[in-house]
């Protein structure tokens, strides 16, 4: 299932913004089954076991309109618990508490229920030892380094004024103290130098790209004019394949809106394709990416 990407479209009389975690659970179950070829519960149990600490890295920068939907994050959290993980071993996180709160998440630092907090929580913070990999030298969130055996990356599908597209690999700019240093040259090779650090690469075993809404231009911040309903989730174990699928969807939406291709705007996300090549080899890109699609009716 390495380079397979599953695209689950949600068909429902509800508005996209009204889809809740139960709706998303249904879509996610089907998506995980299509991805793994086995029952979703069996897949999650085999992937994570029952004692692992699993954290869900969301992206709330684009709040209030283009953040990871809490329904998606709580949807997968619910499935993880149903698959046998203790609630307190599941943590939803991002860099800042205020962004999580504004995105609708309920902060929970306790040992009861699914936990949710930002790196800026008092007592959490960043490591004091510098992590150096390639051109990147950063302090990593302690949620990543100390509270995560595995990470599920749950970014949101967005255009980015500097690197063209932002998805699962760039999501980890939200796990370091100095992301502002790495936006030159279309964020290349910074996204890859960061994501290829073993402490990240080895933990991120599953990615779910939230395409409920898509910011097809003017991202990564929320820009109401260019936000479209996507009503889809993209799921893969391969971060490169997933980002390629997300990028292709973004281009498709941009075309439908009469926007120029990212290459013509000099914002082509070259990093996705570099990620598949040496020295990174973080996954598969190009024509060998297999995308399977299904519509789930609710």
């Amino acid at each position, binding site marked *: 299932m390495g380079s397979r990407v599953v695209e689950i479209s949600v068909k429902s009389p509800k508005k996209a913004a009204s889809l809740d975690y139960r709706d998303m659970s249904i879509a996610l179950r089907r998506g995980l089954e299509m991805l793994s070829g086995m029952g979703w519960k069996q897949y999650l149990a085999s992937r994570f076991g029952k004692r692992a600490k699993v954290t869900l890295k969301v992206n709330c920068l684009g709040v209030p309109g283009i953040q990871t939907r809490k329904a998606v994050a709580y949807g997968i959290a619910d499935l993880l618990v149903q698959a046998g993980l203790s609630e307190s071993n599941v943590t939803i996180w991002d860099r800042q508490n205020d962004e999580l709160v504004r995105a609708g998440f309920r902060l929970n630092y306790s040992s009861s229920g699914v936990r949710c907090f930002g790196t*800026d929580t008092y007592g959490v913070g960043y490591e004091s030892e510098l992590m150096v990999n390639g051109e990147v030298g950063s302090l990593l969130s302690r949620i990543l380094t100390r509270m995560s055996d595995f990470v599920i990356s749950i970014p949101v599908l967005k255009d980015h*004024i500097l690197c063209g597209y932002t998805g699962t690999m760039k999501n980890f700019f939200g796990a370091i*103290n100095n992301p*502002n*240093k790495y936006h030159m040259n279309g964020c290349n090779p910074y996204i890859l130098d960061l994501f290829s650090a073993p402490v990240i690469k080895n933990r991120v075993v599953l990615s779910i790209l939230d395409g409920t809404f898509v910011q097809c231009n003017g991202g990564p*911040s929320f*820009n109401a*004019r260019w936000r479209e309903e996507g009503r889809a989730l993209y799921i893969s174990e391969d971060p490169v394949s997933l980002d390629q699928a997300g990028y292709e969807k973004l281009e498709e939406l941009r075309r439908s809106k009469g926007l120029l291709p990212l290459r013509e705007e000099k914002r082509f996300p070259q990093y996705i394709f570099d990620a598949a090549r040496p020295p990174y080899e973080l996954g598969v890109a190009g024509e060998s990416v297999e995308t399977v699609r299904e519509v789930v009716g609710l």
Partner: protein
Amino acid sequence: MKISRRQFFTACGTCAASLLVPRPESLSRMVAATGDAIAFSLSSDLSDREAKYYERKQGLEIECLLCPRKCLVGDRERGYCGVRENRGGKYITLIHSRPCTVHVDPIEKKPFFHVYPASRSFSMATAGCNVNCKFCQNWEISQSRPEQTRNYRLSPEDIVRKAKESGCMTIAYTYSEPVVFYEYMYDCAVAGNEAGVDSIVVTAGYIQEKPLKELLPKVLAVKVDLKAFEEEYYKKIVRGELKPVLDGLVSIASSGTWLEIVYLVVPTLNDDPTLMKRMAVWIKNELGAHVPLHLSRFYPQYLLRDLPPTPVSTLRRLREICIDAGLKYVYVGNVPGDPGEHTYCPRCGKRIISRLVYFIGENHVRNGKCAHCGEKIEGIFEKKA
């Protein structure tokens, strides 16, 4: 600041011991060894003051016009410096009146060797920097966002009052990069001028011409870290550009504001004698032979840990090259006890200011002239009445 002979040698011994270790101490320990730490109450919030130099672009995007990087910043995003944030199309400086480091230092520590020798300087910094030098010795604050540092709440008036109370002749904007806290620095300088406390700036010089020219009349002196004399080094090691820095140096020199230059000599990366000679000639022709040049010793840290410290012999050879090229005042830095720490009269060659690390021994400059031969020694040695 007058000290006795005993105090001088005791301080020198302590200071030399703290420096003669293979790897320099962390900033806070260095400061503790050589300056006076000052305690203030911490601030839990950041500033929301509007920044000065930016332009609104399409939608809510803005373009920062403070430094040559000209960051294009989306809503709720920050520029490269990490301390300026776009909030709904309004650009905010998060660190106005929020320094994370405040100390009283000898002015020689900046280093300024031709400004008020042996005086104390009220030194401060905020989080953030608009470059990312691989050898940065203060990366814990310069490469951090203000949420990640412990910040004080000190208005420009507070800074000036504390500087006067501490017996400081100057306020130094130093440690990280004052360009990123431009508005705060500017306001402190204005408040200081009204109260008779001068401002000195320690910077990489990576700033746009307009804000630089508006700042210069407000400050007494600027020390620029010229990191190298080739663009490639700036691109790879500094993550910036050389050209705007050279333009800035010319602006400073022609403004009448006192200028000194520090050049950190990194083995194999920027220690080419040919380039050094070219740089010295450029300084002489474009800025003036009187501009002091400090050649500083590199110690491995931050992202450049795989290089050895600069050999002292390299520093001495490069110093000779710069003197031969016509520069009058060339110093060796970060080498305690080196003869290159002293100031020599460019005419009679006699030692006129002796130093050990940050401390002054004898000073034979009288009314801006060599006490031995009467040659003019450029600098600001006494405060004008």
